[in-house]
């Protein structure tokens, strides 16, 4: 049984059609890519899955639960996490606090505990601290723990965003153009990183990307969107040969990149 099932997902902004009849069956441990020209509705799909928008029509079944109408934080806490197209770290917070903040749902202690500094509070905080530090050290960020995240170099910020996402013990990871603004060498690094993360935390990943090299390199399956509609689906090779895709997308991509 698939971990994520999206049926007939449709969303309108007023009159504008952002996503139309989007379907997806995602098996556990899959890594699938969604590509398509700007404004094709890729990010909108992520926003619909994570509850930022309420879809006009359709269902999103994750682990047997329908996510439609759920609060974003509930969805995140239940294992669907995402990164952002344009980095959205908490700039003024330290690297460590960025991760600890993401542990919000992990901490099992009430306000009263917090205000009275009960034993429970201390043990929870201690736990979260260690967890966060371990996570950071997996990504070699532990020595920067006390740095303000805005002072990190771009590549590390991207990495930190992934760490922050992982803090919620996710099952499904949504990566929104992780390679945006990276140079070729960084991209190859990223490819390895994604693969490694996938294995390490046995994740299922949906990847939105413009960088054909990345998508073709690591995705097992690719869906192509254009004006909110799915125009093609299949393995990287199939996609590369699909005439509609070439005309709708790859054509521009050649001089685009």
């Amino acid at each position, binding site marked *: 049984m698939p971990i994520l099932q999206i049926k007939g997902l449709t969303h309108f902004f007023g009159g504008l059609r952002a996503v139309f009849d989007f379907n997806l069956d995602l098996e556990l441990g899959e890594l699938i890519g969604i590509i398509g020209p700007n404004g094709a509705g890729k990010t909108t799909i992520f926003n619909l899955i*994570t509850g*930022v928008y309420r879809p006009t029509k359709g269902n999103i079944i994750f682990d047997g639960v329908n996510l439609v109408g759920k*609060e*974003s*934080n509930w969805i*995140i*806490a239940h294992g669907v*996490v*995402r990164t*952002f197209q344009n980095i*959205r*770290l*908490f*700039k*003024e*917070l*330290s690297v*460590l*606090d960025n991760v*600890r*903040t*993401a*542990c*919000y*749902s992990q*901490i099992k*202690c009430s*306000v009263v505990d*917090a*205000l*009275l*500094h009960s034993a429970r*509070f201390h043990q929870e*905080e*201690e736990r*979260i*601290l*260690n967890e966060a*530090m371990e996570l950071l*050290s997996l990504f070699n960020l*532990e*020595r920067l*723990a*006390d740095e303000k995240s805005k002072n990190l170099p771009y590549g590390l910020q991207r990495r930190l965003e992934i760490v*922050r*996402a992982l*803090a*919620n013990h996710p099952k499904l990871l949504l990566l929104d153009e992780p390679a945006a603004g990276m140079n070729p060498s960084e991209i190859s690094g990223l490819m390895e990183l994604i693969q490694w993360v996938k294995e390490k935390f046995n994740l299922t990943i949906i990847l939105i990307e413009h960088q054909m090299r990345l998508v073709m390199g690591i995705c097992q399956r690719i869906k192509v969107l254009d004006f909110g509609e799915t125009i093609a689906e299949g393995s990287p090779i199939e996609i590369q040969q699909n005439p509609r895709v070439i005309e709708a997308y790859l054509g521009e991509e050649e001089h685009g990149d």
Partner: protein
Amino acid sequence: MTTKGITQLSGLRDKFKKRQWALALALVFLFALTFLIPRYGLLNEYVQLIIIYIGINIIMAVSLNMVNGYMGDFSLGHAGFMLIGAYVSSILTVWVFPRNWNPILTSAILFPIAVTAGGLAAALASLIVAFPSFKTRGDYLALVTLAFNMICVSVVQNIEAIGAGRGFMGMKKLTTMPWVFIWALIAIWVIRSFVYSNFGRGTVSIREDETAAELVGVNTRHVKVLTFVISSFFAGIGGALFAHILQFITPNTFQLQKNVDFLVMVYLGGMGSIGGSILGAVTYTVILELLREALTILGTFPIFASIPSLEVWRWVLAPLLLILLMIYRNQGIMGLREFGFLVPFRDRFGARFWLKRRELTNANSSN
């Protein structure tokens, strides 16, 4: 290497412990002062009054900072919560509680109850502002809070039973220096504990990027409600203390002007910094009082004596200060920094500590 590490580790802890003890002692000493001063009249009553005002202002500024500084919302309704606290507590002490108890019991038992009740009432009222804050942010929320403030004022103005616009009185002078000290301490302690908990981190993440906060699993609604409730609880406390030092309150006392005073304190001290708010409250109150003195002295000189309302120039300062602050240093005195002694050990040295410990364990395993 290992031993070195251990000593370093324990050194870190001990240094911190020592600091905390010093702080505790300082507080005890200060507290002793707060009732030696009135007892033996070490300072004249007016100065005592100012000190009490400072204490109340600290409570107000620190609590306002929770919303305006840490959560990054813009509340213009703090005086409204103050009003609620003031009236509720006053009504209790004047009408509900026995008036001819012996003063010791009144001050030790009834007064704290009344003050707490005032705080709770304000906290309850804060929900009116908290729920809209789910949807609206920025300027619009500022307006919601402002409208709330104005409504509080005009509601009181329409309740004949409590003197309407003419004010309410009959409170005994129950606010004493020790009480203000204690309440200020509680306020600082509680707010600090909140800010350095996961809820506090949630609050700050809302300031930094609300959508992102929601999308890394922070229950922003929960956090917002908590922040507003706690913040306005202490605003209510401040109001209650205020009412029982002045022994007379009118709704007009809690108009926008009062909010602006608190805003100056918060932004002067620096947003998102408890230490800053304390600093701001003290500085601002003292400056205004010194100015009062200065102008009275100036007034004695013939040149200035001719000026009709020299006193008024005092009120020119507050807004001017704010404008200059906003233009030249909108971070305030402290910026987002914090006094070390206000930051819990874990949040201050946690990472370093963890690294050291790992170093040690590695070292151990290696030999």
